[in-house]
């Protein structure tokens, strides 16, 4: 296969190619199609997908925005594991000289590698993951105490980029369409511990309902795969404790 030198200025012409199987289709049907893609230095999975779209098939659909691990829109299944593709190096995941790239698990497919993220975000709201204000703009600012215990809990989970990698990794999500999932519950836990959020009981009610934190089996796939190294399993354990205490204390 010939490669386009102008693509990668300053690099040798790639001589090696890899076989990449990409899932092509829509909500109804689809299948894997194989492409040969030149292997490059410091190449990410997103680079591979973009290369196919630019050189082999302009109709390939996929989603990305920032390319630097901030926006959370580029997640896909790579060799059966959910990953942020813009920050996953080919070198790290290449298996027998090949790759398999598929749309994120546990979400409806729109086309090719693009999934419909609506159910994922709807569950954030269902888990109480919206701000419940305690003050209005006319009140003085409520200062946070960085070293308080609650703040430390909230800070530990706050860097979520909504990539849905944990949601795709979770077997409980796969088995139960109503399960809120690790990201939404992690968000609920950070808000529950946020002194500026006044929705404590609302959150506990939301996360202890059907499909809430007590459905989690502590398999830890969320924590294993979260690209930001967050620990949704830990947050969910916190919610299990908080809801159980609240039940024992107040019957709620």
């Amino acid at each position, binding site marked *: 296969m010939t490669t386009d030198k102008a693509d990668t200025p300053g690099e040798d012409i790639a001589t090696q190619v890899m076989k990449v199987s990409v899932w092509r289709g829509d909500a109804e049907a689809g299948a894997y199609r194989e492409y040969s893609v030149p292997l490059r230095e410091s190449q990410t999975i997103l680079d591979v997908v973009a290369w196919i779209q630019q050189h082999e098939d302009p109709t390939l659909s996929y989603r990305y925005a920032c390319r630097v691990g901030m926006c959370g829109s580029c997640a896909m299944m790579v*060799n*059966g*594991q*959910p990953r942020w593709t813009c920050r996953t190096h080919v070198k790290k995941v290449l298996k027998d000289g090949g790759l398999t790239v598929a749309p994120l*698990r546990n979400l409806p497919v729109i086309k090719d590698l693009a999934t419909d993220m609506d159910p994922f975000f709807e569950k954030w709201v269902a888990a109480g993951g919206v701000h419940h204000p305690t003050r209005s703009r006319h009140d003085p600012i409520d200062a946070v105490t960085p070293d308080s215990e609650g703040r430390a809990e909230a800070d530990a989970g706050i860097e979520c980029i909504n990539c849905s990698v944990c949601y*795709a*990794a979770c*077997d409980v999500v796969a088995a139960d369409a109503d399960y809120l999932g690790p990201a939404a519950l992690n968000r609920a836990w950070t808000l529950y511990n946020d002194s500026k959020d006044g929705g404590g009981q609302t959150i506990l009610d939301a996360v202890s309902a059907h499909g809430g934190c007590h459905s989690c*089996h*502590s*398999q*830890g*796939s969320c*924590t*294993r*795969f979260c690209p930001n190294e967050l*620990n949704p*399993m*830990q947050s969910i*354990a*916190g919610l*299990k*404790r908080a809801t159980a205490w609240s039940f024992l204390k107040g019957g709620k």
Partner: protein
Amino acid sequence: MRIRPHRSHPLWLAFLLHRISGLGLALFLPAHFYVLAMAVSRPADLDGFLALTDSPLVKFAEFGLVFLLAVHIFGGLRLMALEWLPWTGWQKTLAASAVGLAFLVSGTFLLQAV
């Protein structure tokens, strides 16, 4: 059986072991109660049955049973610690310890039995 790639990590395997041991114990329990009931209903048959327990095969099966019990107990304690105690960073170590302890207990049992 091939474990799918997104499941190949220690805590998922700990979940699998916990589920399998739980199912194994659930299957064993009715048989256990049936044999116990023989003490009341047919004592003579019970003695005959208990003689079987001297065979090496049954001894080995008992080792398996003790292992299932131990791994289910320690795995359960691990889960209770995970959900009720303040979080620690060693969840994988705890899961491995549960399996290790279960081998220790069931191995000791086997050595006592032979």
